[in-house]
């Protein structure tokens, strides 16, 4: 006899408990993942608005819609919101929470109450970060990197912003802790490490980075707060300090952070490619190990953000060399994905299209990372629009498209309904076109010398800036089409079965949407995650 919790879909009220409190104090990983999904997408919208406003200001030289101080605040908040409130929590907190226990055949994560607490920390950090826009001496204007000495001296609301960052960091740490423990302790007995889905492997590697790197961010922003409060001088040369030590501490976290951003998205791509090529992933072990290798190697390269800072030539050479090393495991993944597609039976569905978009945009961004990682060429492009283009290609083109791919891939599983294929395809074209129109010119003007974070610019950059701004409108149109297309499919009857894609990981054995209570008894794991014999798509 099944209890209601084992049949009622998790999105619907649990018998006897309903209303908002059953969501915001839920300890069900699926509901917590949904809370994160809505929060994160809301913060993405805020970040997009800030970005659009920045691009409007930059459409022509001189003042267009805001003054310079406001522009500084815009790019600071755009960075803080996008990085700490959207991309870093992004895929792990939303899709990781929903999918991880399902993929390993567990009832829930190891620490469900810690899990909802992590979401409350996220929410608190979000509220504080947005509040810093409106209180104190005005929104922070230091850039999301909070470099000293400016962050210590500016009268804007850096103190509140760094408190928000600390709290968000704690949320990230606790999620990582929860996921590591869950994967070690709660796998179904037949779910050996060698049968783990690659998305799970990516969450595992990411969780270790979250756990070990984020505390360094914690102490770093605490020191900024302390310096603002007490003026000790730990980073102040006139008091014996060294400002470069701030940069070291900051990037010791923030470089590994970009791997927190990208590795889960790579995990999503590793799920989608085999399912839509109907062929087992090429080089499962290599991809799993490459996630761990990226996590480790990515912790050795932070000072490639500091080539022009005045640090020693020795450090420049060492970090430049190591930066080339970390490109290798990423390349392994790209080769293996492409090899999986070769001679596969391709279903060109939107999840695959977004995954292919990821591969193209991330590879382009990654290759430009070599220009930046190579110290000699970096001297020319450091702090120019070349950098801005690079990281938007890898983070937005990478993680962003990975998130869109995840949204389409798991939409039917979560909501029990199918998305509108035509709108998804249309959005893809607008997004790819708009994205490249927005960011490709930045490589060009960056090479021509356009500095980043500049409110105004010389006439020689105007064409590129204008094309870029128009591209931002196309991109936003694509986002609107995509989200509208998805949201209008949230209503109506739930007609999707357990396995619309014919995929072979455990979440596809459950109803769509899954019920509140899943895997109360550990499931059997008869096949590997990418063995499709005997697995059929249901229609």
């Amino acid at each position, binding site marked *: 006899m099944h209890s209601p919790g084992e049949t009622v879909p998790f999105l619907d009220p649990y018998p006897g408990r309903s209303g908002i409190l059953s969501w915001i104090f839920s*300890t069900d990983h699926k509901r917590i993942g949904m809370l994160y999904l809505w929060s994160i997408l809301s913060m993405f919208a805020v970040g997009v608005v800030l970005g659009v406003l920045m691009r409007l200001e930059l459409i022509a030289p001189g003042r267009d819609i805001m003054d310079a101080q406001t522009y500084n605040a815009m790019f600071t908040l755009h960075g803080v919101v996008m990085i700490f409130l959207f991309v870093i929590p992004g895929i792990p907190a939303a899709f990781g929470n929903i999918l991880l226990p399902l993929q390993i055949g567990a009832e829930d994560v190891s620490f469900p109450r810690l899990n909802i607490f992590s979401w409350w920390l996220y929410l608190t950090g979000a509220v504080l970060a947005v509040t810093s826009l409106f209180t104190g001496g005005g929104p922070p204007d230091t850039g999301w990197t909070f470099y000293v000495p400016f962050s210590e001296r500016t009268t804007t609301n850096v103190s509140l912003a760094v408190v928000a960052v600390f709290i968000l960091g704690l949320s990230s740490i606790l999620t990582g802790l929860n996921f590591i423990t869950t994967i070690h302790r709660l796998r179904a007995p037949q779910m050996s490490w060698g049968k783990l889905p690659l998305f799970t492997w990516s969450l595992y590697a990411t969780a270790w980075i979250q756990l070990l790197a984020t505390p360094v961010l914690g102490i770093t922003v605490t020191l900024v707060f302390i310096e603002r409060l007490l003026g000790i001088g730990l980073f102040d040369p006139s008091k014996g300090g060294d400002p470069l030590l701030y940069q070291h501490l900051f990037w010791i976290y923030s470089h590994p952070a970009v791997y927190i951003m990208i590795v889960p998205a790579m995990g999503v791509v590793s799920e989608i490619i085999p399912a839509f090529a109907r062929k087992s992933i090429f080089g499962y072990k290599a991809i799993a190990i490459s996630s761990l290798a990226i996590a480790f190697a990515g912790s050795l390269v932070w000072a490639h953000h500091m080539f022009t800072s005045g640090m020693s030539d020795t450090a420049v050479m060492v970090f430049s060399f190591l930066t080339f090393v970390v490109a290798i495991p990423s390349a392994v993944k790209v080769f293996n994905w492409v090899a999986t597609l070769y001679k596969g039976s391709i279903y060109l569905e939107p999840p695959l299209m977004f995954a292919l978009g990821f591969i193209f945009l991330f590879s382009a961004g990654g290759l430009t990372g070599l220009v930046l990682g190579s110290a000699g060429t970096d001297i020319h492009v450091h702090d120019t629009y070349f950098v801005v283009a690079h990281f938007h290609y890898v983070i937005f083109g990478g993680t962003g498209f990975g998130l869109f791919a995840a949204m389409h891939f798991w939409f039917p599983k979560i909501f029990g309904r199918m998305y509108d294929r035509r709108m998804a395809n249309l959005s893809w074209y607008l997004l790819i076109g708009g994205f490249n129109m927005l960011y490709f010119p930045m490589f060009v003007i960056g090479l021509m010398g356009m500095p980043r974070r500049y409110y105004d610019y010389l006439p020689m950059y105007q064409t590129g800036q204008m094309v870029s701004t128009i591209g931002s409108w196309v991109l936003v149109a694509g986002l609107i089409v995509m989200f509208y297309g998805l949201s209008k499919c949230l209503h109506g009857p739930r007609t999707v079965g357990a396995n619309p894609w014919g995929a072979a990981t455990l979440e596809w054995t459950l109803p769509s949407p899954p019920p509140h209570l899943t895997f109360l008894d550990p499931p059997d794991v008869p096949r590997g995650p990418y063995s499709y014999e005997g697995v059929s798509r249901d229609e």
Partner: protein
Amino acid sequence: MSETHKDYAGDKFGMWLFLFTEILLFGGLFLLYSVYLHRYPAEFHAGGLQLSRVFGTLNTVVLITSSLTVALAISALQQGRKALCLWLLTATIALAGTFMVNKYIEWSAKIAHGIYPGSPEMAAGAGGTNIFFGLYYVMTGAHGLHVVIGAAILGYCMLRIWQGRVSAEDFGLLENGGLYWHLVDLIWIFLFPLFYLIS
């Protein structure tokens, strides 16, 4: 909602993972210390001479003993000796209090001598000396905060033990609280020589 069953090993593993984060949190401060020691060896040595070895050694002995008492308390509870366990935990918290009192005495003495962050004396003196004492306050202050948190955690454990919720059959909470306390001791084991004995 789903009832998760107790996972003793998982709870302990999670606590160790949390301790890893604390190691790296303090690690950032140890990074600063290392660099500045390398840059200002003379000022660090001179600064160390101004700290009281007596208080430092005393506090080290206090914390090491508190680690003993909490470890004994866990053994006692596992043997079902609840009253002994509670006395040992009381002793642990008392030792924590002693540590904080000593810290207060040390800090007040320094502050009275004009040695504190942002003081005129620090501003007028050598940069290296300012950094030494700046790090001293930040690192021992952060550590002191963790002493207070640790004592509070052990106090909560005492409550649960007294209520019978934590016992010889189910002692994970106390073990994990003890782990946190040992970390507090470990950090001091490194802070003590780096600040008090660096001369």
